[in-house]
Structure formats: C-alpha cells, structure tokens
C-alpha cells in the first residue's frame, strides 16, 4: 500500500468512523445514565435520515415555489435542525412507550420492548412509504480537492467537521452543565438521584433527546454522503455502533467516539487489504479480542454496588 493510498483510506475511514461515533454516543449515553440497551437506536438513526429527507424536500419545494428563496447551505442547516427536532420527538416517544413503564422491571424486558419498538419503526416506515429506495436531492455541489494525490470531497470534510463539533458539544453538555451533572449522577448511583431532587422523568427524556439529536445529525450526514435511504438502513449500522459504544466503555462519550473511529478504521482497512466479505468477520473478532482483554472497554469504570438487574 502506497502512502497516497493509505492517506486516501485514512480519509475514508475518518468519514465512516464519524457515523459510528455519532450513533455510538447515543447508545453510550442511554446506557450510562439509565443502564439499558436502547436497541431501537439504530432505527432512530433511520428515522433521522427520513425526517431529514422530508424536511429537505419540503424546503426545496418552498424555495422553488418562489415564496422564500433560500440558498442551499441554509436549507442544509434547516434540514439538520428539523431532523434533530423530529428525531428527538421519536426518541422521547420511544422512551415514554417502551422504557418508562418498565423502569422497575428486569432490564432485559426493557431491552426486548426496545427491540420491538425498533421493529415497529422499521415496519411502519416500510408499510407507510413502501420498499423503494429513496434518494436525497443534491443539496450541495460535491467538489473534489486533490491534496498530494489524495482526493477529498467537501462533503467528507463537512461530515468529519460536524461530527467532531457535535461530539465536543455533547462532551461540554455532559461535563459542564447542571443537566450533565444530573446525568452523571444517574450513571454513578441511580437510586439516590431522585432523593436529591432530580426528576428521573426529566433526565431520561433529556438523555434520549441528546442521543437522538446526535443520531439525527448522523442520519442527515449519512444520507448526504451515501444518498440511498431504505427502511432497514439503521439495523446493521446500529448494531455495529452498539458494539462500538460498548468497546468505548459504559457511558463514556470520548470512549464511544474513539471506538467508533476505531471500528471505522478497521472496516475500511480490512476491506482494502482482504476481500470485502471478510470485513464483518474481522471487525467483530477484533472487537471480541479487545473485550476479552479489557472487559470494561477503553474508558469504562467498574460497576457500582447499586447495579440494577
């Protein structure tokens, strides 16, 4: 592999890892704060992509109708914001329907309802919108820059930049705000938090809103880079991001980010060196090896004595 090829793959891996990292953050937050596997998160990502598609198509129609003419970059920003709001509502709905009634039940039951809500989102989409693949309208003109033989598109730069920015904001929310303090308190000692005057019924939806917003951004960015949407798009990428979240360590945002990028790198480089059918096999095997030697993930902390089962 020449240096140029390596750099090219490196850039691709950064982009691919950004999606994993953004989705893994959502898993990691819900897992850290509420100690449950949000198995519907991959489908929340899918909802984000579809809501973005509707917002974007609507805005383009308004813009073309001549009522208000908007430049493409404004449409893009509004699409991301609209998708974040819509997907947050989906996330809150999932929390309300599937997780809140089961807060005192075995955690595994909540995991099953999560799986079922995910299935529900997928099928409702398939049933309501049909199985045909949908395409994002071209919003921004794709431009390719050559830097020393490595071609980098402007979408790639945007994806990586936005992902890093979002992760920085998430990190600041969790570590510098009062709500973040409450969330970390939940992760530390769940039963005591309500005694301190913090409402779990506020913290839980807030966690879902943050995670879903990150998933919505990932959804819009993903559909701009790979402009094909289908109802089952969230499934595979969601499960992989889940594994990344676990690799990063329970509830750790920087861990989720690191593991997301690591998974992206493994997948891209395995596909570059070996036949691409071996991609999943090698990626999961490496994940398994890492967990064997570091059962708590990269930044995981040992469980507190108050683990709820």
């Amino acid at each position, binding site marked *: 592999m020449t240096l140029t090829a390596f750099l090219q793959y490196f850039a691709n891996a950064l982009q691919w890892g950004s999606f994993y990292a953004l989705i893994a953050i959502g898993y990691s937050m819900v897992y850290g704060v509420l100690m449950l*596997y949000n198995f519907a998160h991959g489908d929340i990502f899918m909802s984000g992509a579809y809501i973005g598609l509707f917002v974007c198509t609507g805005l383009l129609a308004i813009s073309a109708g001549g009522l208000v003419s908007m430049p493409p970059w404004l449409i893009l920003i509004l699409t991301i914001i609209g998708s974040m709001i819509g997907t947050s509502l989906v996330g809150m709905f999932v929390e309300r*329907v*599937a997780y809140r*009634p*089961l807060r*005192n*039940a*075995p*955690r*595994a*039951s909540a*995991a*099953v*309802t999560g*799986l*079922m*809500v995910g*299935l*529900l989102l*997928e*099928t*409702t989409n*398939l*049933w309501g919108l049909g199985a045909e693949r949908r395409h994002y309208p071209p919003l921004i003109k794709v431009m390719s820059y050559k830097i020393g033989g490595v071609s980098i598109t402007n979408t790639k730069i945007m994806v990586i930049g936005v992902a890093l920015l979002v992760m920085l904001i998430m990190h600041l929310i969790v570590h510098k705000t009062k709500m973040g303090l409450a969330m970390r308190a939940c992760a530390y000692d769940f039963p005591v938090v309500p005694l301190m005057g913090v409402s779990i019924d506020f913290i839980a939806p807030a966690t879902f809103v943050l995670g879903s917003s990150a998933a919505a951004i990932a959804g819009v960015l993903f559909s701009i880079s790979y402009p094909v949407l289908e109802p089952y798009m969230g*499934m595979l990428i969601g*499960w992989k991001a*889940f*594994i990344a979240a*676990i690799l990063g360590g329970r509830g750790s945002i920087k861990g989720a980010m690191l593991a997301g990028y690591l998974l992206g790198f493994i997948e891209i480089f395995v596909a570059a060196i070996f036949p691409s*059918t*071996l991609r*999943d*096999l090698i990626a*999961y*095997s490496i*994940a*398994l090896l890492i*967990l*064997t030697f570091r*059962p*708590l993930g990269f930044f995981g902390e040992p*469980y507190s004595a108050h*683990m709820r*089962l």
Partner: protein
Amino acid sequence: MMKSLIQKVRSRVNEIPTHAWLLGLLVATLIERLVGDAVAGSLGLGIIPRLFGVRYILTKPLLIPSMMAYLLVIYLVPISIVAWFSAPLIKKLPSRLSTPIFLLLLYGALHIWGGLDEYRLLVLQFILISILLTASLNLTNGYMGEFSCASGGFMAVGAYVTSVLTVWGFVNDDVFGPPALPPAIGPFMFPIALIIGGIVTALTALLVAIPSFRTRGDYLAIISLAYTFIIKSFLENLELVGGPRGFMHMPKWANLPVVFLWTLAGLWVMHNYVSSLLGKGAPGVRDDELAAEVMTVDTRRVKVITFMLSAFWTGVAGGLFAHVMGYINPATFGIMKTAEIMAMLYMGGLNSITGSIVGAVLLKFLMEALRPLQVAKWIFIPVIIIFFMIRRPWGLVSFREFGILRKEVKRAPASD
C-alpha cells in the same frame, strides 16, 4: 336454584383434570378426521379451517359465523362432553401412570390434528422447535439472569454441523460426493448427528463463556451478540457450505414424532437440571452472586455448565430446524431470529419451563395467524408484545410451573 346449579357446574368443571381435557381434544381431532370435511363443506367453508379458522377473521369476515359453528361442532361440544364424563374415570388413574398417559394423549391429539393438513404439521413442528429454543434460552436469561443474545449463532452452528453430517453421510451431494454410509441407516443415525451438532455448539459456547463470565454484568450480552455476528459472517464466507447462498439437500427426517420426542427430551433434561442441586445454583447466581458463593455454590462452574447446556439444546433445535426446512442459509440465523426467541422468552415468562411453552406457542401462533396482513403483521406483533411486556414485565407465567411440570412437594410425616 339457578345460581346453585351454575356454582355446582363450575366447581365440577374446575375439578376436571388436564388429562380429561386432552382426552376430549383427542376425541375432537378424531371426529374432525372422520367428518371434518363433510361439516366444513356443509357450512360453506370448503376445506377444514387450518388453524382454528383464525385467518377468516382477517380475510373473509363473512365466514366467521360458519367458522364459529365449525369450532362449536367439532371441538367445543365433543371436548366438553368427553371431559365431563371421563373426569371421574381419570381421577382413578394411579399417579405413576399420570405423566406417560398425559404425553400419550397429547401426542395422539397433535398427531391426528397435524395429520389432516401439511400446513398444520409444519406449524406444529416450528412451534415445538420454538419451545425448545425458548426453554434453552430461559436457562441462561431466565434462571441465571444473564443476558445472552447468542441463540441465533448457536442455532446456526447446530444446524450447519448436523446438516453437514447428514448430507456427507447419507445424501448424494455435489460438494460432499456420494454418501459415505449406507443411506438406509440414515434415520437411525440422525439422533447421533443431532447430538454431535449440540456438542459442537456447546464447545463453541465455551469461547463465549470463558471471557464473559470473568466479570459480572453485561459482557455476556455484548460478547454473545458479537458471537452471533461472527458465526453468520463466518458461514457467509465458507464456500464449502454454500456461503450466502445457503446449504440444501438435507433429508427431511425431522418429522412430527422426532421433533416431539426431542423437544420432550430437552424439556425433561432442562427441567431436571434446574431442579438439581447444581442447577439450583443458577437462580442463586441471578439473585445474589456473592451470597451464592458464600453458600458454597461454585458460581463459575454453574455459569459455564448452564450456558453450555443451553447452547447444546439450542444447537439441537437448530439441527431439527434444518431438517424440517431442508434448506438453510446464514441470513436465517441472524439477529432477527435471536430477537424472536427473546420475545418468546420474555413474553412467556422467566424462570419457568411452562412460561417458555406459553410464550413460544402464543407468539408462533400469532405470527401464523396474522400472516394474511403481510408487511403490516410486523406492526401488530411488536405492539402486542410491547403491550404484554408493559402489563406483565416478568412474563405471563413466571416463577411458576403448571401441569405435569409442577413438582409435588412430599411432606415428611410429622414425627413430633
């Protein structure tokens, strides 16, 4: 006067033992076999309703009265009459014979009921296999309180190993060449192939168990999930067994009696295991690992053995599944299969073999009954499961056993 009569009937009905109901069902299926076609024809149904006519509710609502009449004539009336009058006789049965007669009656009813229609037979086979799968998942997830997502992967290993053995041994195949053993002894060697499949599955389970049982917590969930993905991906890359196109030409040896016997054997072994001294450590591990350790439970051993037993029976169920279908491909055993089994388990009930049976029968029946809805079926089923989970988070029948699974508590006579 009226009220006392109703009370009398009610108390009499409550006293009818399960055996009498089963005898009624057997008689009802016999009647269906003899006059089912004629009754269905005269009621305008055409053919006998396959799954108690539930499909008519969705496809031909006009036929619902006929369907009700059919159910009344063929099932309800004979079952009630037979159960009512045979109850005194059955109560005189010696308790030693109770379980064998129960199983004989059950099998007889299933055999005649399933023998009337190919589709019924297939549904019965899948229901029995699902029961085995759910009960074996119950060992790890229900009794031991861990969260294993490896059912799909275990099933795949069992299915592929068993299929390769039978195809290599007894079928003329393009890849494996002419049969290595005389095909005539094939059906007799099938149990051995299933057991080897189960053992191989249990050995691969060791790969999951060793790293994940070092720490308490959720690592089994993640490692077993990764295991399922790795197995699927591995099989997709294995050209010898067809890769993603799948593997076929398995002889369809898993007919109803075979599946019934294997499911029975599995439930028997698992029920005995959780009642044994070693197996009782599993709920101990779930409730308080430290306390169990203090009470001389070798928690590590209990965990590994329970997990391997669960894997063994999941592998056997996979082998049976392959020999019902006659064709398997890696995509069958993906995360959706695992999710289906988990839904059956958590809906049916934790820590109970009865619960596993209830969950598997209910969900599988629901999936078949809602088939006419096509895609929309997968909107209704999740909603129903979520509803059940919210109403009963521990499952429909949890921590309890019914019928022949219930252990009679023998009290020592007071010696004062």
